[in-house]
């Protein structure tokens, strides 16, 4: 696989997109809580692990990919 091409297509292209908007937005000062609530809809019972529906509130994990 051409990983160098992937790096360009994802990381560098994404970085360029973000950089274009660097002066934009109305940034929220770090430390504030702009939504004041649970991030994701409905909450639910966290089951952690992989392919699950969320974290455990302890050691955070991440969603699975393909």
């Amino acid at each position, binding site marked *: 696989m051409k990983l160098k091409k992937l790096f360009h297509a994802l990381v560098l292209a*994404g970085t360029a997109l*973000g950089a274009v908007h660097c002066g934009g937005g109305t940034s929220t000062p*770090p430390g504030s809580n702009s939504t004041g609530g649970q991030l994701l809809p409905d909450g639910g019972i966290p089951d952690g692990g992989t*392919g699950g529906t969320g974290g455990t509130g302890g*050691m955070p994990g*991440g*969603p699975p990919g393909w």
Partner: protein
Amino acid sequence: MSESKVPSLQDVVAGTWGARYRIETEASLRFGALARRLDAFGAPRALSELAERASRDETRHAAHCERFFRAAGGQQLTGVDHVVEYAPASWAEPQRLTYEVVAQSCLAETQSTASLVTLLEGAESQELKAVLHELARDEVHHSRLGWAYLAWARPRVDFSFLGPLLPGMVAGSAGPEIFKPAPEGADHPDLLRQGVVPHSLRRQVYVETLESVVFPGFESLGVDAAAARSWLGKTLSDARLIPG
């Protein structure tokens, strides 16, 4: 004749498309929530629009996964209908949002893109090729969202909290099975023709993508990947995948 418990190739194919259906339905919900959250955080509209688009894309992807699941003889399909965030609720909003965007886009979607590119090379049917092409095209944008967010957020959010958490994020995303020996039937080379990356190749692609795309990407944007690199080295060594 004794009954074999070894899963057939079709079982593995159906199981994989079923798992992908869950991944896609979960991702659709996560991107929908991230779009609202990015707006609330004051991120550029271009980023929240990318997340909105990704949410719609993932719903369409889930329908493709369901079709291939059924075609492979799959019966029971379960999607994800609710999600909670991985970041602890006790964190401040900028850290929580950053963690969620990075976990979903920089990591999971980047890895998915790499898997799809791998699959494109081996797909057998024109229908499968067309779908994989469509998905790969979309996932590129889903991944870029994360890297774009980091570039935008860099002057606004202190990323120093993230580095020590990357091993847990990567381990959670990879899943515990990827560094174990292949389950029965999961390493068959014919799987590639049916849209499934054989276990050993999947691990190879995963590791190479971390080393050549994800970790350098983090480092280029001010996120310390040293802990994640150490974790990967130790994990591979423990699994005897590289000399200890």
